[in-house]
């Protein structure tokens, strides 16, 4: 059993959390700010430092082109897939992006792939956990939407690796939620988990018995969530503005990243308010001192979001069909995800499954808590988890492209994982040493309607007459829901080498490079931070010195002492705006030393003034770090 802590991480579209098993129950680990939720927002601040989470949120409005949110929507996807996303989200793509290449997003002047951005969020969570434990954390369980395809899962795993985490398991979010729900072993029966988050929707049907959590069927939509509600409200607001304040101004607002960001914040607040109030007010500052104000009633809101929420019905019905179950046979419905707080969503779920959904669990935290339970199981288990076992399924059918642009399904959706299938191939040409295989995911018949997963090139087939080689190819979907392929030519017994070209993913080499790069950035970022802090310190001491020179104690120094101080003062001013940390540091220390006597004299003057009835106000030590003497070294946190 490992002595390292294994944590459970919910890497969400809107918010992320890290949790672990504390004795008998899972708990969320808070950040330095004491909050459990870390917004999945990454920004570059004024000094080009990476900022993650709550601290990054203000940049969404202040400098929207230097901030990014909801990057989960881009994981494992290519340029062609995200055209819709680009219309609705302020993602800025790198200019030189080619089709088929991994996406690169611009934050300020830097570019990052989605896994790298997610890695920054993961790194923040990792640090929160390490701070909490006072020990390193290198192993984690990370959750993914059940309906995530292979590329999206691989991207999540890559993000973990880039962040320096060994991802022991990817767990499906609804399954994780069921673990938190069913931790009490007495729970058994058929449970439905309805998970509507910021960007993804999952519906899973599970059978719970004797501590076994068995998924029977799962379905969903990886581009459906609270974000879509927000975007709809934003679109309506922009229309309103065009109508009220003119087409030209409306278009100007639409083009302003900052204005749209303000509108977005306002609609989100209104949306949340409408979960408990009959109406909400939008009040947004627009450019040119104008304002947008509108009152939204609950009734109008519910009408607006109806089509979005209705999109969850299809997957629910399909899952029930795949499971061979009717709503009457369901024992419990569990709600997960912030968007399930919307009363209309709850009513829809109640209608669909003909029972009142279970709402005791915090929909924002339950997935992370479940991940912590799974982390505990993987670490060897404890008294409360030792009888628990997760049996999950693959959400999408796996197929191979065959002649005629058709897919041949070799592993069907909702098959319990790990699952495998074996196919036999041969060569068409004498002496052919390579065989190409195109693997897809999806339920449709035609290749073009399915999702290309990867192209496998089997190399090293011993040259033989055409048709003679018998190449056994084994497709294995592991417990993470990720595909592995191995191949063997049976006549010679030779293992074929497999070259994988992931369609929307990073190669192992690329991930390795990012790992090093993120360390390089960390190093560079750290050095930059040092310089900035030294600069601040230099400013403090120089300002204090300027005041000191006006103090009656100044003339009490010898002219030589004064000349010495001023020389050092000029020297520090010369270096402080440069990038040489050591030079600035040296300058500060030298000036500190040289002004010791001045400080003492100023203190004596102050004390004697006080004794004479004057207050300390005259000396004005300036707000900020309290120093022993006015030009002493300041304490920075």
């Amino acid at each position: 059993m490992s002595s390292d802590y294994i944590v459970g991480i919910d890497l969400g579209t809107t918010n992320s959390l890290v949790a672990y098993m504390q004795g008998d129950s899972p708990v969320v680990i808070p950040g330095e700010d004491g909050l459990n939720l870390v917004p999945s927002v990454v920004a570059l601040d004024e000094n080009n430092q990476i900022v993650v989470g709550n601290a990054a949120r203000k940049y969404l409005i202040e400098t929207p082109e230097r901030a990014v949110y909801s990057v989960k929507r881009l994981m494992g996807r290519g340029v062609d897939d995200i055209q819709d996303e680009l219309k609705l989200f302020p993602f800025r793509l790198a200019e030189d992006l080619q089709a088929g290449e991994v996406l690169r997003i611009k934050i300020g002047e830097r570019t990052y792939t989605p896994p790298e951005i997610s890695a920054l969020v993961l790194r923040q969570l990792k640090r929160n956990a390490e701070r909490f434990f006072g020990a390193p954390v290198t192993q984690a369980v990370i959750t993914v939407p059940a309906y995530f395809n292979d590329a999206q899962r691989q991207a999540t795993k890559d993000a973990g690796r880039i962040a320096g985490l060994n991802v022991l398991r990817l767990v499906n979010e609804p399954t994780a939620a069921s673990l938190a729900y069913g931790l009490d072993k007495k729970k058994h029966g058929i449970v439905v988990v309805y998970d509507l988050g910021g960007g993804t929707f999952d519906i899973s049907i599970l059978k719970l018995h004797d501590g076994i959590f068995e998924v029977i069927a799962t379905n969903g939509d990886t581009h459906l969530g609270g974000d879509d509600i927000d975007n709809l409200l934003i679109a309506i607001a922009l229309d309103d503005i065009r109508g009220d304040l003119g087409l030209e101004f409306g278009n100007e607002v639409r083009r302003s990243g900052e204005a749209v960001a303000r509108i977005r914040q306002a609609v989100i607040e209104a949306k949340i308010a409408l979960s408990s109030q009959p109406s909400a007010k939008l009040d947004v500052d627009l450019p040119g001192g104008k304002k947008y104000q509108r009152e939204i009633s609950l009734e109008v809101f519910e009408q607006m979001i109806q089509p979005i929420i209705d999109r969850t019905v299809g997957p629910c019905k399909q899952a029930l069909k795949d499971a061979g179950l009717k709503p009457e046979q369901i024992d419990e419905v569990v709600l997960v995800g912030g968007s399930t707080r919307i009363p209309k969503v709850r009513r829809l779920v109640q209608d669909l499954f003909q029972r009142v959904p279970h709402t005791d669990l915090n929909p924002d935290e339950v997935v992370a808590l479940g991940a912590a339970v799974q982390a505990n199981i993987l670490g060897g288990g404890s008294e409360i988890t030792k009888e628990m076992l997760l049996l999950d399924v693959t959400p999408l059918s796996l197929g191979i492209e065959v002649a005629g642009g058709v897919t041949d399904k070799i592993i069907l959706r909702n098959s319990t994982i790990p699952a495998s299938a074996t196919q036999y191939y041969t060569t068409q040409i004498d002496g052919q040493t390579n065989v190409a295989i195109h693997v897809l995911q999806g339920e449709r018949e035609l290749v073009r309607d399915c999702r290309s997963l990867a192209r496998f090139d089997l190399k090293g087939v011993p040259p033989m007459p055409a048709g003679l080689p018998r190449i056994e190819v084994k497709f294995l979907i592991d417990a993470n829901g990720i595909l592995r392929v191995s191949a063997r030519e049976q006549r010679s017994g030779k293992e074929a080498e497999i070259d994988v070209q992931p369609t929307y993913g990073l190669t192992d080499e690329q991930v390795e490079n990012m790992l090093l790069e993120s360390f390089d950035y960390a190093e560079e970022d750290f050095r930059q931070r040092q310089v900035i802090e030294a600069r601040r310190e230099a400013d403090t001491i120089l300002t204090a010195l300027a005041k000191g020179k006006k103090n009656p104690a100044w003339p009490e120094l010898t002219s030589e002492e004064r000349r010495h101080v001023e020389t050092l003062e000029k020297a520090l001013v010369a270096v402080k705006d440069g990038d040489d940390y050591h030079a600035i540091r040296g300058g500060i220390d030298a000036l500190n030393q040289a002004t010791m006597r001045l400080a003492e004299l100023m203190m004596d003057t102050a004390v004697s003034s006080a004794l004479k009835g004057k207050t300390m106000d005259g000396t004005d030590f300036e707000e900020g770090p309290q120093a022993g003497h006015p030009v002493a070294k300041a304490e920075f946190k």
Partner: protein
Amino acid sequence: MRAVHFCSSCGKVQPPVPVDYFTFFGFPRKLNLDVAELEKEFYALSRRLHPDVFAQANAEERSWSLEQSSMLNDAYRTLKDPIKRTEYLLRLEGVELEEQSKQATEKARATGELKKQVVPPDLLEEVFELNMHLEELRGQKKMGEDDPALLEEIGKAKLSLEEKYDALLTELKTEWKEWDKSVDGGTANATEEGRRKILAKMLDVLNRRNYVRNLVRDVNEAME
């Protein structure tokens, strides 16, 4: 006889051995199977073979557990379903599921030819009549016409086919009994030749059942 998944003395997971699904579960190669017993075995083996149990084990054990549990899941999935179980047995016994074979389908797709579909003799007349009706229906649809009498006729035919579909499963299960008896020995069928005959009969039932299912699907499509 059951495959050895664990060492008898130390209980550690063993490297996977390529065995058939029946042996994997320790079941005889019979078609009548206690599904409840199968399920119990499945859960018991899952608890011990699942990769989650080996998360902290060495790389070799993790690899074995991955292979063993994928075999376990594949085996369970196959044996649980009566039709998949039958098809699997046929494959084990070296019988090729002809018209339904992937090669035939692929060849047909590649050349654009129609796949050879042998009409089950007892359905010949019914199929002929039904196909005529469907042609008529398609023609009418193109013209935007609607003939309730025709629809009723086709509806009746579909019902009859669905009944046949169910009846074929019953017929299959009768063959199961014969097969199981032959495995036990002591009957006239317990010879190589006898067993081949039973297998052939089962194959025939499966083919006819598939044919009927495809036909029902055609009807549903035409009626949309």
